[in-house]
């Protein structure tokens, strides 16, 4: 048994030695600098990119009683680097703590860089860093990303991650911006048959904003004044094979979100032209999409035919023409109007995608798959080409849930 004891003791020494050196991955939580937002711009140097980092200050807003801290809630750093993984190391010459991408929530790419062919090659590096999670969002900014972060100064959210979290979530729920996570970006890229929509945002307002209909804005066009932060998140950028080709307005984005079953939009408030008024009044309605669309395709023959049926539940909220909705006749008119309006909008949009973009910005090709037996047949069909020739019909199944409260006309005084 002496031998056994000796061996045991040796092993123990060995283990202790390991413990002395060990803990290789250990890092104290306050030792890190957390990057909330990352900005990518084209750099003046060939082959490099300009990386902007938005860092959060954990002390601000964390202690209940208020730490009495006079530090700023965030820190923004911009510099040139080869790629944003090496940027972590370079950044440490400016930033005191160890940069970590664990809390990265949003990656903002400037429009000019997104239109660059080189963009996708650099962007693929994102998958290599294990810290960056695939549910991080991708946004395109009109101006340079470095300026975007500096101009973005939310007045009510002192902690930057909260601001982006709220803005993005609510924007997606409203349907104004697409759910553009890295996960979907790479999935669409690998699939290769559809286009990808990324959120569009800006912190600089347009010089002379026009007043358009409720949703036909793109980011920066909404004339919002007052004591607020100028950042806006509306509309989307269309990506083909990793390169940005065009933009869509908020309304078009919302239509795509309705067509796309894989987004989770909650109820949307829309404006629909009132059929009962003569002077272009619009009434507000709440659109709820609770079931998935039905897509049927007839893919044989020269021109493939696609039939999309969208089931929508509508709740009429406002009633500017003071119509009495208890009459069946009025109900029918309104129903037809809504269906026709949405149908026209969608068909117009899809036509635009067929001709201008030459591709569909949401995974419509998935519906086509079930008509083929094997992958080879599917490849022969070549969705990309066939879509441009396709004949698309959109039908809207409207079910009006509620007509709104006020039905009677108000009395006029002195009548």
């Amino acid at each position, binding site marked *: 048994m002496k031998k056994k004891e000796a061996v045991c003791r040796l092993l123990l020494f060995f283990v202790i030695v390991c413990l002395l050196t060990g803990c290789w991955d250990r890092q104290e939580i306050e030792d890190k600098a957390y990057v909330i937002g990352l900005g990518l711009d084209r750099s003046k140097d060939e082959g490099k990119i300009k990386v902007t980092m938005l860092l959060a200050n954990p002390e601000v807003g964390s202690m209940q009683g208020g730490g009495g801290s006079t530090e700023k809630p965030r820190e923004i750093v911009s510099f040139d680097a080869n790629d944003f993984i090496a940027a972590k190391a370079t950044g440490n010459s400016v930033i005191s703590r160890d940069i970590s991408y*664990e*809390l990265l929530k949003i990656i903002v790419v400037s429009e000019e860089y997104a239109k660059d062919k080189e963009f996708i090659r650099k962007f693929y590096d994102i998958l290599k860093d294990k810290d960056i999670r695939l549910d991080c969002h991708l946004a395109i900014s009109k101006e340079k990303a470095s300026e975007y972060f500096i101009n973005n100064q939310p007045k009510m959210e002192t902690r930057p991650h909260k601001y982006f979290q709220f803005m993005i979530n609510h924007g997606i729920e409203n349907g104004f911006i697409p759910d553009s996570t890295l996960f979907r970006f790479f999935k669409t890229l690998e699939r290769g048959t559809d286009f990808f929509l990324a959120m569009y945002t800006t912190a600089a307002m347009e010089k002379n904003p026009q007043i358009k209909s409720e949703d036909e804005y793109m980011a920066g066009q909404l004339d919002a004044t007052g004591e607020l932060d100028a950042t806006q998140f509306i509309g989307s950028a269309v990506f083909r094979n990793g390169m940005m080709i065009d933009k869509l307005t908020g309304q078009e984005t919302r239509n795509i979100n309705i067509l796309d079953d894989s987004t989770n939009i909650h109820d949307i408030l829309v404006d629909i032209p009132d059929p009962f008024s003569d002077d272009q009044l619009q009434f507000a309605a709440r659109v709820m999409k609770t079931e998935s669309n039905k897509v049927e395709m007839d893919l044989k023959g020269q021109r493939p035919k696609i039939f999309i049926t969208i089931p929508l539940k509508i709740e009429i909220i406002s009633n500017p023409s003071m119509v009495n909705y208890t009459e069946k006749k009025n109900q029918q008119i309104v129903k037809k109007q809504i269906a026709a309006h949405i149908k026209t909008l969608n068909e117009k949009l899809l036509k635009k995608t067929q001709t201008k973009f030459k591709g569909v910005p949401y995974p419509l090709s998935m519906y086509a798959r079930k008509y083929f037996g094997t992958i080879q047949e599917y490849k022969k069909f070549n969705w990309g080409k066939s879509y441009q020739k396709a004949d698309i019909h959109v039908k809207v199944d409207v079910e009006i849930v509620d007509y709104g409260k006020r039905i009677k006309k108000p009395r006029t005084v002195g009548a």
Partner: protein
Amino acid sequence: MKKKVLKPLFKKLNAEPQFSEESNTQDIELKKQDISSNYDQNLATFKSIFSIPKNIDIKVREFIIGSLDRRAFIIFISTMVDAQSIQEGIMEKLIGNDQPSGKIQNITSSPSERTATNIGEITEFITGGVTALFVDGDTQCYLFETTKITGRSIEKSDNEVIVKGAKEAFNEKVIDNIALIRKKIRNENLIVEAKVISKRSRNDVFLVYEKDLVNDELLQTIKDKIASIQTDRILDLSILEQYLEERPRSLFPSILYTERPDRATSFIEEGHIVLLMTNSPSCLVLPATFWSMFHSPEDHYLRTPYGNFIRFLRFQALFVAMFASPLYIAITNYHVGMIPPDLLMAIAGTRERVPFPSTVEILMMEIAFELIREAGLRVPTPIGPTIGIVGALILGQAAVQANIISPIVIIVIALSGLSSFIISDVSMNFAIRITRFLFIFVAAFMGIYGAIALFVPGLFYLVSLKSFGIPYFAPMTPHFISSKDLIIRHVPMKERFRPGYLNPKDTVKQRKG
């Protein structure tokens, strides 16, 4: 060759220490003999054995038995006997007896009577509180049970507190303890066997079991184990527990130690064996599995939904007590991405001013908590609450204000400390607290990977523990027939079988229908 050289070398190094002792052979020889029929000789022998009159509480009462007209003396230890019963049952009857003939058995009216002849045996009985009667000319000595030991009365259980159910606890008098068990199981097959262990103090152990339920092999194993103890004294049941265990150095207990009679009786009814001892306000239940230590009688006394709720709570408490601090260390040091961002910012913000790394923080607080806990147990009652408040104030508020520790560490430590109180078994409690420290070290070394790398071998170790031949996690694994009362407790109507790993003679508790 090597062995021949090494063995004597080791023997020399590990030799038993030799002491110069006085020889006791004379006394031992004396005790091997029988008593004589000579009155004076007996008197002298016993006076010398007991060192009378130096020993003031050993009394010798000489008298003449009226009817038989012979000299007799009784010898007893006054502090251990019931003087009343001696007087009524023995003295009065003997002295005041008129009938000329008759055996001593028929004269005395003491409820229990026995005879013995060996001096050593008689001495043992006298030290146990038995009164010995020596009659001139009689080679036998008459022994009467007159033991009356003073001690606490039956009180509420202090350590195993339950809300619903009987609140009695064992006390130091073994008579009371046996009575408590007997009144719950009124069966003639309930056997209380006595065995004397230890040579100098002659402590006796009582085995309580039901003859027609318990497995004979198991019983024999336990009896052999008890008989093999060669020591001078075993003062308390807890020390006996350590002698009996197969792995006394293991962290986890393999014998159940409880102070509640209702627990003891429920185990007897399943086929276990219970050990009692004088001066121990508790009993040992063998064999014991992990489940016997983990379940509490309250699970069964409460209605099924409530009992299961309490049980889940206890499971949660087990995990929280063992893993809360190690998880905190592992997650904040190695897996930071797991924390929701708001919480992460909060933790990072408060930790900025703390000078110590989080492992050191947790260790400090854990040790402080253990100190408070032990101190709280022994604090005199008048100032108890004050100390509690001071402790909470000092260690909690002030430490955070002074930036020695961050507030979330206090929450983690408080949670884990409080949860460990839910496990009522004393040994298991310590086991969990100590393993928590082990886990803290491993989590600091390798994060979650380290914790799992300790947990799985820990599971292997636990599974290989055996308590008198029964695996520690039986009947869950290896699988045996049982009442299926492991994680979820069913309605009593469904608990039909006794645990199969005990091999009881009657496995069915309830017949169907």
